[in-house]
Every structure is written in C-alpha cells, then in structure tokens.
C-alpha cells in the first residue's frame, strides 16, 4: 500500500501520430481521451471532471465537453502554455481530494506541423508586455538563446555540455518506434549542426510535431478497484516567474519554487527520484531546470548532464526515456503531457525494456510554459509507483 495520496493516474495515452494531415484538433483530443480511458479501464460516462488548455478548440473546455459528449461537474481550462498539463494534474488532485470530481480527464492535442504554425503569444494592445518585446523580433528560439548565453557567461557552460542532453534523448529515441528522430547523435553532431540563434544549434531545439496525449486521474477509492497499474500523485507544485518589473535574471526558472513545493508535498527529495521527465523545448531548458529542481548545484548543470549522465542504464539520472521533445514529439508545441505519460510508463514498468529504469519507484515530471527569458510557468509533479 505504501504512502497515502490524494489522487492516482489511472490511464495514460500518447497519440501515435506525428503528422495529423487529415485529423481535426477536436478529433485528436477525443482520440487521446478514448485511449486514456481504455487504458484506465473506464468509460466516457465515468468522467465527471474535464481539464484542458489553450490547445483545445473553443471557449475553455466547453467545445470539447460538447464534442466528446461528456457530462461533467468540474471544468478547468487553466492555460500556462506547455506546463498546463502538470498544472492540471495538481488542480485535478485537489478537486478529487475536495470531492468536486472523482474521474478527471486531461487532454492535449494539436497539429502545428500539418498547419505549419509555431505559437507565440497573441499580439494585441490589451496585452501589456508584447509592445516591449515583439517589435524587436523576439522569437521563441532567441528568447531561450538569451538564457543560454547568460548561463554560459556566468557558469562557463559549454555547447558540448548542452549537446549531451540531446545525445541522451537520442539514445532513448532509437528504441521508440513512434519517435520522429530515431538516429543516435553525438556531441559533435549537435555542435556542428547549423547555428540557429547563438548559442543554440538546430539539434539543441525540439521537434515540431502533431499529436497529443491524455491522462485520467481518479480518487484513491476508484484506484483501488482498478488495480496496480494506477500511479500515485505524491506531490505537485507550480509557480510563475516574470521579468520581475525590470529586474531580469535569466539564470533560473520558477522551477526553483515549483520543485520545492512539489517535493515538500511529497515528503521526498531529489535523491529519492529514480528518473525524470523534463520538458525539453531546448537543451538549455533541461539544464537550467535540473539545477532549479536541486539535482545539482546552480551553475553545475553542464557538468551534471555530461558524459551520458542522463542516459538510462548509463548515467545516474535517466531523463526523457521516450526521446522527449528533442527526438520523440512535441504535440501542439506543448511538452508536459508527454512528460507525465512517460513517467507513468516507467512507474508501471511499461517503458521500452531498453530504457526501463529498474525498480522505478519515484519519478518527477516537469513542465515549463511560456518563454524562459520573459514569463514562464513551471510545474512539477512527483509521481510514485502503485505500492510506493
């Protein structure tokens, strides 16, 4: 039985598509919902809470509740960008604990690849910050590149160290039949790939893909009836970091706070974690996040990720064992749902045998949403095996 927890993840499903040429966004949401409910052993009519973010079409969750024919008594459409699904995970656990719902469905889906579209915040004159950023041709990649540049300046982080993160992801992706990029790459491959925005090369950047994923969360009572594939939600934390009124500091993210909150709720420390899944929009995102979560000292991320330390079976801290956003997929340009799903696979012992972490008891799933050098919401979930 192990420790008590507020809620369990009973079902998880990742859409196999990476290029949804002839599927609508609503259809993709429904397909991942169906997959996660089947995985849980539940039906659509069991769902009484629905969670989605800005990738879902329509107003809040309303259009998707209608499209899927749900009848819910709890709805939450909090949108914090790519971290939204780890935010939802925490909110769903709270709602379940409060008795507001007992079977919570969280979906993510999108087709930015088929639609040939990347996402930046809407540009309008009601959003107060964009007039001070967009005119300078801020893109997603050069926003992240500025954080990487500052990290290099303060801590002497090298391009080769960043490259190790991509190398580790590629070692895992070779075993994932659905991954977009399955070729194992070397540090040299990464640093010799074209420079996109200094110091980030093409292979420091994640893929653009279609697809999606969903999880189903349930109360402890329902989890008991569903068997030992249910995964425990041990703790969750979320926090927002901004340009802080002009006191910009690019060396850390809100993961410092979200991680501390999540670990405290779980009663665990980084030393207890057997593997991590971290939203890897860019290599630098992972490096800074590992420091922020306490897996190494601030500034030591470069050393920590080097020499295969993130490769399952090789290093001390296996990460993104599905290949992550750097190699596997990045549905709707939002990376945290797939992070939850791979952590669930690991805790069930259902990851690919070549990347499965032996006796995986506790895993951490982390999302970052927004932009690392301006406004970012970090969310951290600590998950445990059914008997943890």
């Amino acid at each position: 039985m192990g420790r008590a927890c507020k809620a369990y993840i009973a079902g998880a499903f990742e859409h196999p598509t990476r290029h949804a040429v002839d599927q609508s966004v609503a259809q993709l949401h429904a397909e991942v919902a169906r997959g996660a409910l089947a995985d849980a052993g539940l039906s659509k009519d069991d769902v009484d809470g629905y969670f989605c973010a800005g990738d879902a079409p329509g107003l809040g969750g309303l259009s998707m509740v209608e499209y899927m024919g749900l009848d819910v008594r709890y709805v939450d459409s909090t949108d914090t960008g790519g971290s939204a699904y780890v935010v939802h995970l925490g909110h769903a656990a709270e709602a379940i604990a409060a008795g507001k719902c007992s079977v919570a469905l969280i979906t993510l889906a999108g087709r930015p690849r088929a639609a040939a579209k990347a996402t930046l915040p809407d540009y309008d004159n009601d959003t107060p910050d964009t007039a001070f950023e967009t005119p300078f041709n801020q893109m997603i990649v050069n926003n992240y590149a500025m954080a990487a540049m500052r990290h290099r300046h303060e801590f002497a982080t090298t391009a080769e160290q960043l490259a190790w993160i991509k190398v580790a992801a590629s070692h895992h992706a070779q075993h994932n039949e659905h991954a977009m990029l399955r070729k194992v790459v070397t540090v040299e491959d990464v640093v010799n790939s074209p420079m996109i925005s200094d110091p980030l090369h093409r292979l420091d950047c994640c893929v653009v893909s279609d697809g999606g994923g969903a999880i189903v969360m349930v109360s402890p009572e329902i989890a008991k009836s569903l068997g030992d594939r249910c995964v425990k939600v041990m703790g969750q934390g979320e926090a927002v970091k901004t340009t802080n009124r002009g006191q910009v500091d690019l060396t850390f993210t809100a993961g410092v706070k979200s991680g501390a909150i999540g670990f405290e709720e779980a009663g665990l420390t980084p030393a207890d974690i057997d593997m991590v899944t971290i939203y890897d929009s860019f290599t630098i995102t992972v490096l800074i996040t590992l420091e922020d979560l306490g897996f190494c000292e601030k500034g030591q991320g470069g050393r920590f990720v080097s020499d295969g330390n993130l490769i399952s079976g090789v290093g001390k801290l296996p990460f993104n064992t599905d290949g992550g956003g750097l190699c596997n997929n990045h549905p709707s340009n939002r990376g945290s749902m797939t992070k939850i799903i791979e952590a669930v696979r690991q805790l069930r012992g259902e990851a690919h045998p070549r990347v499965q972490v032996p006796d995986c008891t506790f895993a951490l799933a982390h999302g970052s949403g927004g932009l690392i050098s301006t406004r970012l919401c970090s969310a951290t979930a600590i998950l445990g095996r059914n008997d943890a």
Partner: protein
Amino acid sequence: MSASYPDYPIPAPALDAQPFWDGTALGKLLLKRCTDCGEIHYYPRAICPYCFSSATEWYEATGRGTIYSFSVMRRAPVSYVIAYVRLEEGVTMMTNIIDCNFDTLAIDDSVKVVFHPIKGGFSLPLFTPA
C-alpha cells in the same frame, strides 16, 4: 557589420504605455518611477508593480547601459541581435543591438540608445556600442 535591418513589427502599445512611444518618436527614452515608493520599473505601467500606487511619473533615462544577455539570430532573412540591456537606472529592457560586429559582441559591453524609425510613425529604442 550589419548593413541592412530586419523588418520590425509595429508596436501595439497598451493605453498606459503610449507616452513611452510618444517619447521615442521625439528621441527620448522614457521610464516610469513611483513617487510613493521611489522604485523604477520596466516595462512602464500606470500602477506601480512594487506598491500598487497610482502615483507613477515619466522621466527621461540617460540611454546608457550594458548588455545583460544577447543572441545573434542566424536563421532569419537578415541576421539580427536580440538583447537585454541593463540601463544605468537599474532596469533591464529587451531590445536589438545594431551597427556592431556580431562576432565580437559580448555580455557587459557598454551600449547607448539610438532611435530607429519604422512604419506607423513609431521609433524603436535600439542600442549600439557606446
């Protein structure tokens, strides 16, 4: 050296930030400070983000600062430098560094503001090596 410039999107300022853009059109870099708590903030707002006072006032910055971070965007029709510049007044603003050697630019370099007219009557506060 960069001989040509990228296309600049036109700012869509919120109402309480319009004086900033009126200032740049006149060659002035205006900041907001709070006369209640004394703090300077950026980007400029009607309500002080330190103490929530409405007693915020515009004043002209020196236009000098240092590069806090930057990146040369290579994958663009015309390469350009995005940067955060820390002004002498203590706040950091996003901008572009222009008329410089991209390959020797460094964090902590001293820079000064230049006003670059674009479409729509706007002038962007960009920076160049001091």
